[in-house]
């Protein structure tokens, strides 16, 4: 038995998307070229733009193609920061939720180091949900020096849905633009850019059955975005670079299919996830579900646990060797698991955070996947617990103090 329980990392390509890609890769043509081949490619790009916009409640002119979610996040954070500062140099504060993905956090801290920004990490509660009161206080006290707010639609690790309605209302009351990373939300939750009131929103194709290497920043026409990539002037000059017609066509096909029948799919996904959560808790009674206890307030495909006394990487190995693919959920540097900044921001202590494991379900997930997980999880936890204690103990004879 094998089971892929890591849809939050990437999803299997939808069969219809594979078809679209196969056909599109057979055609030559730079969408910027004026000849027939170029015009044909341009048509694919624009039809795809209309499809993505339609699926996400945006106008076609608001869709800026990027190489993926990370580039879209960088463009939003750096582009809005620079754009705001051009007309209002005093606006140097970047407000981001402490549980943002590194693709948002790291550009923000880069701006602090290199471009005079001041990063304000907005706290979250024990379930990983933004503390709206903290945002309100920040804006009421220092809105005039704030460049932008970035709060994700749903957290990639613990699945917590963020109170974007309140974030947008608060920020706009103070004239501050809001960006949201919606990479995890599309295909699992209804996402309507226009209704959300957001100024900019990140989406990624491969998180929803599309190809890797393509995404978009959905961004209002009046949002002040300074380009990050300069060159041929594509995408209104906001994002230069030759457009890859097959990739955007695949992206459009994936988003279109993901959004159709979403309600039914999300219900089925949530039911499967609830079953997984209940069975994990029954099998490992001391496992702690992280993220919102009310599963209606988390991504329908997300389940996240910490297993006391275990190292997440030990569990990962034991499950992997039994054909079950999950994730510790946290960022890796050359594969070294660091304690998750998301869990630490939620107040989880470092030892508990090391025992984290995320199971994320998607379109191809079945009850058999959950069965496969439960067949091996109890034994894996028992073994990882024994290994965790061994790895943590120090020899009594070991000198640990520096003498002088």
């Amino acid at each position, binding site marked *: 038995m094998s089971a892929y329980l890591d849809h939050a990392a990437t999803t299997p390509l939808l069969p219809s998307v594979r078809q679209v890609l196969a056909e599109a890769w057979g055609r030559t043509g730079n969408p910027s070229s004026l000849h027939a081949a170029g015009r044909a490619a341009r048509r694919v790009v624009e039809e795809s733009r209309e499809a993505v916009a339609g699926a996400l409640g945006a106008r076609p002119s608001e869709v800026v193609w990027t190489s993926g979610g990370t580039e879209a996040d960088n463009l939003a954070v750096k582009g809005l920061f620079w754009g705001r500062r051009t007309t209002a140099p005093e606006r140097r504060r970047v407000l981001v939720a402490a549980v943002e993905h590194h693709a948002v956090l790291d550009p923000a801290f880069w701006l602090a180091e290199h471009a005079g920004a001041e990063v304000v990490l907005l706290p979250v509660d024990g379930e990983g949900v933004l503390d709206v009161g903290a945002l309100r206080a920040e804006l009421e006290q220092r809105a005039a020096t704030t460049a932008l707010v970035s709060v994700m639609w749903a957290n990639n690790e613990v699945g917590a849905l963020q109170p974007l309605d309140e974030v947008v209302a608060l920020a706009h009351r103070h004239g501050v633009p809001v960006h949201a990373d919606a990479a995890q939300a599309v295909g699992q939750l209804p996402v309507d850019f226009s209704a959300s009131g957001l100024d900019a929103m990140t989406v990624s194709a491969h998180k929803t059955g599309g190809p890797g290497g393509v995404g978009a920043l959905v961004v209002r026409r009046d949002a002040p975005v300074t380009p990050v990539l300069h060159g041929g002037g594509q995408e209104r000059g906001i994002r230069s670079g030759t457009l890859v017609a097959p990739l955007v066509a695949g992206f459009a096909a994936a988003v279109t299919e993901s959004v159709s029948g979403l309600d039914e799919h999300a219900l089925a996904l949530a039911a499967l996830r609830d079953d997984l959560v209940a069975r994990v808790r029954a099998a490992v009674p001391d496992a702690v579900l992280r993220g919102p206890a009310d599963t209606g307030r988390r991504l329908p495909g997300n389940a996240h646990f910490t297993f006391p006394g275990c190292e997440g*990487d*030990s569990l*990962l*190995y*034991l499950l*992997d*060797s039994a054909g079950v693919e999950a994730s510790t959920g946290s960022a890796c*540097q*050359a*594969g*070294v*698991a660091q304690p998750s900044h998301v869990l630490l921001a939620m107040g989880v202590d470092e030892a508990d955070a090391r025992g984290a494991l995320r199971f994320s379900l998607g379109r191809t997930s079945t009850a058999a996947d959950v069965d496969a997980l439960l067949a091996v999880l109890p034994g894996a936890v028992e*073994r*990882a617990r*024994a*290994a965790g204690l*061994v*790895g943590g103990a*120090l*020899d009594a*004879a*070991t*000198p*640990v*103090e*520096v*003498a*002088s």
Partner: protein
Amino acid sequence: MRVLAALSGGVDSAVAAARAQEAGHDVVGVHMALSRQREQHRTGSRGCCSIEDAGDARRAADVLGIPFYVWDLSERFERTVVADFLSEYAAGRTPNPCVRCNEHVKFAALLDKALALGFDAVCTGHYARLVAGPDGVPALHRARDAAKDQSYVLAVTGPERLARTLFPLGDAASKDEVRREAAARGLPVASKPDSYDICFVADGDTRGFLDRALGTRPGEVVDTDGAVLGSHDGAHGFTVGQRRGLRLGRPAPDGRPRYVLAVEPVRNRVVVGSAEDLAVGWITADRAVWYVPAPGAEPVDVLVQVRAHGTPVPAVVRLRDGVLDVRVAEEAGLRGVAAGQSLVLYDGDRVLGQATVTGAGRARRAPADDAPPPGASADALAGASGEGR
């Protein structure tokens, strides 16, 4: 067997894993992350824990088609190997961090975790041979290639742990053979340079590393009669046998070179003298590990080695009250032995045991046989580090 292959990112461990796989074992690769602040790239031949090394290890695992993980053992490494390195230098002793790493990390934390996770053994790219004994207890022998032999740094591990270890390169004829084999197997690390020096001193400047960690503390350089010859910035910067960098203004009266004879951290003094003063006739050692029944009060003839690539010399050893008493003929030319060094006993190519040096001195100062050697305090002695891993 289910075998966990430690992959450093270098050529030896990659070929060792390949050989274990070829021998029919079910092999999984693991790279040990030993530092939290890892350099992005290797700089020359230095360091062994850069992110680039982890990438090279992953690539080797890809080529072999084995699963690959990175285990974070940095906390363990910092709290044992690095802390021991600093505290030993601060105490005027000369530690070998590779010995400590084998003792506390590779064949302790890594092996224990592997066994707990269901592996039967750990495999590394060390050059040493394990010869199965009649009772299942392995004997540790020098590698076939004497120039690459690492039995010295492995001896601390002990037979129980080595029984759960594979050294597939022990029979390799040479490093060149291993490199050729890596190339033939399509391993991209085939031509990667060897690593030297101490892996956690990324820039190779051990003195600077110690200065930053321990601070500068000026003191006197004196001769054996206590006469002040010069000054130093910190006794931790000197090791027994050192000749260069003494910064003595006046030459010795006899015009011959002077060497560090002792590092005295409490008095913050460095004692220098002639090459003859470095000669060693007796050594004491403790914390012994045995591969054969421990000797008793009756003297036993052995070969002893006190540095990773040092020459083994004939010696007579006996064990009294847990203290190993080693006598070496002064003609053997053993010099500059320091407290903290690892002492390994051999019978030919076979390792008999290992212990940590607590003191050493010249034969003419040797004690009567029924008394412990004088001046064997750690404060009086220090020495040179060996390379290893």
